């Protein structure tokens, strides 16, 4: 198991007519094996961009990202991304969605089927193996998306606001589910959210990012025993601390606009 190191990373988007947008400025972050890290920041702070850089979907404009000793230069089976809703392939059933990565990497049909079943059993979705995404609820779709990430045994799961489109009740259940998965599969999770409570509830450590261009403002270790409760007074302590940061950044972002 290796760690993820983000070193002085910068990302500038080249827009039309020579316009450039600096999405991230000099971000450094270290995530050790087995850790659950939440990245918290206002909308448009470059936190999703940061994940895409880690996943190798986009090249960094400066700095470097290392997984273990290896520099990230492209998509990597060790670090896969889970997006918001609607990232399942609507023309594939659950089983084929889950096995998609294996298929792309040339795994044989039998092996794909076996590993797909194994993961679906662990996330309790075997009954829905032959269902298509449009036949599933929002929460189930995200469970499939997580199963699809787990099937290749990645060391890192990079989650980009995976529960943002879900209703409150489903979101609570999914957070529970994710913690179980994390405990069971021992993957390292980097979780982007703009939800303060979600970050405190899930993560070992919360990284607060500034509004654009994104920089790391603060790292907060969450020393609460699991299972955590949002009604815990200590929980509230973290909430107050992170909320004041977020408020300031949201106001700053609004002024820039």
């Amino acid at each position, binding site marked *: 198991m290796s760690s993820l190191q983000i070193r002085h990373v910068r990302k500038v988007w080249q827009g039309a007519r020579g316009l450039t947008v600096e999405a991230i400025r000099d971000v450094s972050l270290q995530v050790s094996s087995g850790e659950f890290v939440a990245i918290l920041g206002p909308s448009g702070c470059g936190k999703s961009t940061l994940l*895409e850089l880690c*996943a*190798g*979907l986009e090249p960094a404009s400066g700095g470097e990202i290392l997984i273990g000793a290896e520099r990230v230069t492209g*998509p990597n*089976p060790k670090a*896969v*991304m889970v*997006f*918001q809703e*609607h*990232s399942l*392939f*609507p*023309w594939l059933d659950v089983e084929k969605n889950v096995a*998609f*990565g294996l*298929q*792309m*990497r040339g795994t044989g049909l039998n092996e794909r089927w076996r590993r797909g079943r194994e993961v679906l059993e662990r996330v309790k979705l075997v009954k829905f193996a032959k269902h*298509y995404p*449009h036949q599933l609820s929002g929460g189930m779709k995200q469970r499939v998306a997580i199963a*699809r990430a787990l099937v*290749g045994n990645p060391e890192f799961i990079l989650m980009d606001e995976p529960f943002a489109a879900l209703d409150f009740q489903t979101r609570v259940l999914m957070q529970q589910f994710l913690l179980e998965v994390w405990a069971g599969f021992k993957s390292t999770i980097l979780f982007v959210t703009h939800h303060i409570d979600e970050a405190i509830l899930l993560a070992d450590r919360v990284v607060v990012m500034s509004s654009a261009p994104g920089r790391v403002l603060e790292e907060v270790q969450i020393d609460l025993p699991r299972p955590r409760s949002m009604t815990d007074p200590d929980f509230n302590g973290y909430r107050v601390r992170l909320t004041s940061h977020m408020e300031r950044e949201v106001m700053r972002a609004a002024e820039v606009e």
Partner: protein
Amino acid sequence: MARAAAAALIPWLILVALWELASARGWMTTVLFPPPSSFIRFAIESDFRVGFGQEGMTIPVAILASAFRVVAGLFLGFIAAVATGILVSMSRAASAAVLPIVRGLAPIAPIAWIPVGIIVFGVGNPTAVFVVFTGVYFLLTLSTVAAVQSVDPRLVKTARTFGASRAQVWAWVIFPAVLPQVFTMLRINFFAAWMAVLAAEMVGLKNGVGMIVILGREMFNPNLIMLGICIIGVTGYAVDALLLFVQRQILWWKSVE
């Protein structure tokens, strides 16, 4: 399904009943507008054969000939357009070279291609297939290019994070994602293609259901004219129902939710 079909049939039954009533009461000139009871009896009495000598044909063969032409033309046009649209979208240079020409050719009515088809392919099936093909090919190529641009970028990113190469993204994500949208355009353009086939049969091919109407005119046989018109309507409806079936049962998914 059966109930919907029955519901669609009722207005037709009423129309036919009114037509028969108007003919029986003498409100309409049956010589010029024979009612169904008259032209259907005519078809049965003439043993489902129309025309004489070289122009003679049986009605089922005429229907199959016309339906074959339009389905073959649509099928080839669809495949070629999806292939062209995708290949052209893969390269900016190819788009710049090919799309202006396609855009210029797309507005030409399929009927206008009939003389060209007859000159190039002579009088026969290839001309009819060619006319249908040109009637849909250019339009569908443009709609494939538009569909490629509207593919949800999250699906592409998802595929890439799971290790799909550029070629695999085109084959496994963009290709299935654009099929339903392009097929919907195919169905919309089917009627123009169907009319073009009939026109080609009337002016050049001298067989198929279009020819039934022309034979009726040449022999001044209103029964044959009305029979031809009804067969054209029913056959066109049947092919459209086939396309609708393909759309609903085979290419049912949406790539953008």
